């Protein structure tokens, strides 16, 4: 069995991003982390691999720096090997990323692809779905529990109003939610092993995707407007009045 998992690098949600005057963000000095949902995906792959003796592969897309996050976030935790697809992250959208992953799936023939349900930078929540569609594979998104039984994956999903349990046949695409698991910390033993694990470097034309254009273009970025200061209310009656007439939430 073979499991492909994504290891996306995202801007640190706690870092202060700087946007320049013409509305694009300044990326040369940003703090990055591994996308938290990808950490769940990695953990999911590791747990499944332990139970089902699978080979695990982590994929990262972007500039060379991405390799550090593949090693630290995935290989040091126990993923067997990595693939880095060299690309300009500003020139990627969900569609193109899904195409890259599709090409990798065709190259590697995994039985299962596990992704984060979304990346915390763009919050698009599209890649898993697009990939499943392109591959013509079944998908189960927002997984909070994943089990493999025979040639099916049993996935519990978090949906409005409760949990939904799906059985999808392999090969399949799964996207991980935060409650799926508690990602392990990379141990020192894992870190030492990660150094020697293979990390394949690919260009877009290695995947016959040279010249593919993103379908979505970022037009402009701006900072959210600041929140205005609160006010003190005299009593509960005034609070209710304000909630009704000003906030219009009651």
């Amino acid at each position, binding site marked *: 069995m073979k499991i492909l998992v994504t290891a996306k690098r995202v801007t640190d949600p706690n*870092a202060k991003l700087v946007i320049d005057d013409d509305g694009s963000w300044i990326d040369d000095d940003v*703090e990055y982390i591994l996308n938290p949902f990808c950490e769940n995906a990695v953990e999911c792959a590791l747990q499944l691999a332990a139970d089902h003796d699978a080979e695990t592969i982590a994929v990262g897309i972007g500039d060379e720096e991405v390799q*550090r996050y593949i090693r*630290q976030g995935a290989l040091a935790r126990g993923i067997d090997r990595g693939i880095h697809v060299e690309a300009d992250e500003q020139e990627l959208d969900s569609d193109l990323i899904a195409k890259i992953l599709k090409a990798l799936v065709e190259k590697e023939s995994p039985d299962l692809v596990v992704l984060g349900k979304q990346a*915390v930078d763009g919050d698009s929540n599209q890649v898993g779905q697009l990939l499943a569609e392109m591959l013509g594979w079944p998908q189960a998104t927002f997984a909070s529990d994943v089990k493999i039984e025979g040639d099916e994956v049993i996935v519990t999903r978090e949906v409005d109003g409760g949990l939904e349990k799906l059985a999808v046949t392999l090969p399949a695409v799964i996207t991980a939610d*935060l409650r799926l698991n508690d990602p392990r910390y990379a141990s*020192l*033993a894992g870190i*030492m092993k990660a*150094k020697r694990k293979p990390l394949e470097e690919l260009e877009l034309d290695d995947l016959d995707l040279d010249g593919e254009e993103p379908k979505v273009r970022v037009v402009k970025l701006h900072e959210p407007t600041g929140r205005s200061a609160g006010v003190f209310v005299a009593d509960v009656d005034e609070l209710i009045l304000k909630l009704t007439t000003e906030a219009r939430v009651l």
Partner: protein
Amino acid sequence: MPTAPEGDQTLTAQYTKATDPTRAAPPVCPVLCRRPRVSNPSSSNPPSGSGNPLVSDADIRFLLGDVFDVASLLELPAFEAHSVETVDMYLATIRRFSREQLYPAYQLMDRAPPQLIDGRVHVHPLAKKLFAQLVDLGVLTADRSEDVGGFQLPSLVTSAAMLLMMAANLAAVGYVSLTSGAAHLIEVFGDDALRASLMVPMYAGRWAGTMALTEPDAGSSLADLRTAATPTDQGHYLLRGTKIFISGGDQDITENLVHLTLARIDGAPAGIKGVSLFAVPARRPTADGLVYNDVYASQLIHKIGTRGLASVGLTYGDQGDCRGWLVGPENRGMSCMFQLMNEARISVGVEGAAAASVAYHEALAYARARPQGRPMADRDPTSPQRPILVHADVRRLLLRQKAIVEGGIALVLKTAQLADLATHTPDGPERARLGLLLGLLTPVCKSFPAERGLEANSLAMQVHGGYGYTSEYPVESWWRDQRLNSIHEGTTGIQGLDLLGRKVMADRGAAVQVLGGEMTRSVEAAMAIGVEASWCAQLGGALRDVGETTRALGDKAAQGDAAGMLLHSADYLEAFSIVVVAWLWLDMATAAARRLAQTPNAPFYLGKRQAARYYFATELPKAGHLLQLCRDAEPSYGDMQDAWF
């Protein structure tokens, strides 16, 4: 959302992005900082303190990358398995684990200390969980030799990691570092059989270890210890006696623990020359499994700090069947202990710097968030109150803490780096030279973070005003924890005697010569990059002052007045420490100047320079006065009589 993120706060980045001005911004994240709960100070919420960085990432990056050049250390053959990348990854893991796991458990463990029930110590459940996690991460053997399954990281790196972990939760880490230290004694001095039977399960984290030196009648004066060891013809000894204050002396975390115990073999000479080292398992391994070894926790000590770590009194041999195995040669127990003492004393320095660091960051966040009063220039009573950071006196409280904390961190990392070099430098004479310097800095590393760190902890409390004096805010707990560090592993008084009586005077002051050479090199480097000439001159002057005072004290000793030489050993230690830390501040100012030459407005490096300025203006001048007292053998307390008190 997961909590503390692992940022791109890496050494690699430190090298490759040296020219980015904004990268230098310190990583303290104001968004995460807990706001003071001033509107409801009696709220029963346990303070979470989440968002406290524990130790500044930018500072560690700066020290390892720019000041101590970890990359060149990693070029030593001993560290060939490592690279800057593995170091980065290890620190990233530890940083995150410290913030996400260790720190949230700290206050809970502080508030529910271990209990002694029916002769067994029961610790906080979180201590058990964290011990297992720390073992899994590899912390237990991070700096141990590959020969025993360790990862052989430099102490420089593991000390940086320890700073974070100890700042987060000293007690939880204590069980691990004690085990590692005790196993190390068996590794170095034990025979193959002991290594196989006792060391292996300890390094695997299945068993724990302790250091059992202190007795009720033998604390500072270990030469007077009385625990007895009677030889048998079966290879083991039978021990009888009592130990006190033994950290981690019992717990219900691991299935077994091994007490590395100092005792006196029957008929051994009096004093230090008759002390031997034994490995005494709490439960001894037999063909039928682990069997009670007649040593137990007879007492649990109720402490004001480090409350999550059990300190116990141990009773050996009540039933005449407590078996211990000799580690190292007979009557050489103290010298075995001493050979590994550097390790333990550096670790106390790390504890001190860590406890001061976490409190400093808490105080800094508080000062940014607590509105109180208005700046001198704005006395309009209708204007909103401003954060107390605007007051010059609060900035004094904070800058003094910064100078102590960052100076202390530099000191412990410098000492750790020397420990690496003095062990692994291939060239023999160079290794010996660095060994001298390590010996000299060890008592400074043990005592400066403890003594000045306590002051920093007190200042952190001061920043919190009345709230700092309550248990609703965490600053008081670090003050309590810190108080230990000038007492254990040899009190500050004992460190002063060690520095002046042994380290400084040995080989006619050879170690001080080495230090002088290093300081002179630092001054030259500082001058070359244009660091304030007055600081360089000041340090040069202080160095001469230390040299002259040391010679004068040496002459006293040569004339047979050893007591006169040592009369002001505590003042000598304090002065010496001030000068050593000034030297490190100069090195930091030099490294900062190199960065500022490229990025003149980078706040992190401007902050470094300002803290150096503070240290040279306010702290270094104190050394001269203290050294004068030493030279004059100022007689007030020397001549003080018991009856006059």
